[in-house]
């Protein structure tokens, strides 16, 4: 299925959850990421059970301080 992840189209397997997408996209520190799905910020507790669908727009929003690592 096609998803738009951080503005770029990506081909991913069907039925992926948000948690799985974070792993798939090699996000090393998921604790440092907020996820916006189709314009809505997800609660952290929703990552596990939210399944992504064709055409979904996902944004990973990173915590940024002053030179802190987030990726």
């Amino acid at each position, binding site marked *: 299925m096609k998803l738009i992840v951080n503005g770029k189209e990506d081909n991913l397997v069907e039925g992926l959850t948000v948690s799985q997408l974070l792993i798939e996209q090699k996000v090393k520190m998921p604790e*440092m990421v*907020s996820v916006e799905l189709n314009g809505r910020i997800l609660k952290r507790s929703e990552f596990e059970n939210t399944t992504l669908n064709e055409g979904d727009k996902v944004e990973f*929003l990173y915590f940024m301080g*002053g030179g802190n690592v987030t*990726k």
Partner: protein
Amino acid sequence: MSLNEQQIERYSRHIILEEIGGIGQEKLLASKVLIVGAGGLGSPAALYLAAAGVGTIGIIDADRVDLTNLQRQIIHHTSDIGVEKVKSAENKIRAINPDVTVKTYHQFAKADNIREIIRYYDFVIDGTDNFPAKFLINDACYFEKKPFSHAGILKFYGQLITVLPSKTACYRCIFNAPPPAGVVPSCSQAGVLGVLAGVIGSLQATEAIKYLLDLGKLLTNTLLTYDALEMDFRAVKLSRNPNCPLCGENAEITELKDEEQPVCDLKNCKC
């Protein structure tokens, strides 16, 4: 307040802009901006706002200038090492523009002092380097109904958003609470391209001026992200989050408190 001859000359490139004019320049001179943190982001913001003739600039910072600051904190010079950052910044601002009144606060922004300080200002720039301070500024600006510019930088990346409390998405709408302790390495471990602070801090100053002069469209409900390696700017659209613990429908945060600094040591760091 009307401009004197020197001021008309000094600000001529502003005044000639139809959108600013003499009236806009007078407005800037009557405006008050608070910069929290005289570091990487605060340096360019303070320098440009001073040059622009923002009449009162407040600066909060508890630190002294250190050699490692000079790679990006361009308001401080080599001869300032050891000097209070607020004092060093004040000296440069006065040298650039004697029209500006500088108010300095050589202290950490804390829950018990920040509301009283920001109350006096029209716009706040978050130039801090840590998450507890960023959440504190967000919350204090919400309670005091002050517009502010949030920004963060790391490595080759930067981001910023302008917040009009109760009207547009706030920092907690995006990031509910500071990241858990143990996952955040200290700043010195990650590194940051110095000029990145210049890009993002200058954008914060731009937003301040636009707000003060009611110009154009503010960077509200939008997180602007910048990737210096790809030279890519992206505007990520956001909206207010009904689950926001501060400005959401069932807000739990009703007063300011100091968040703990979740910086881990090297040994336990997962980075």
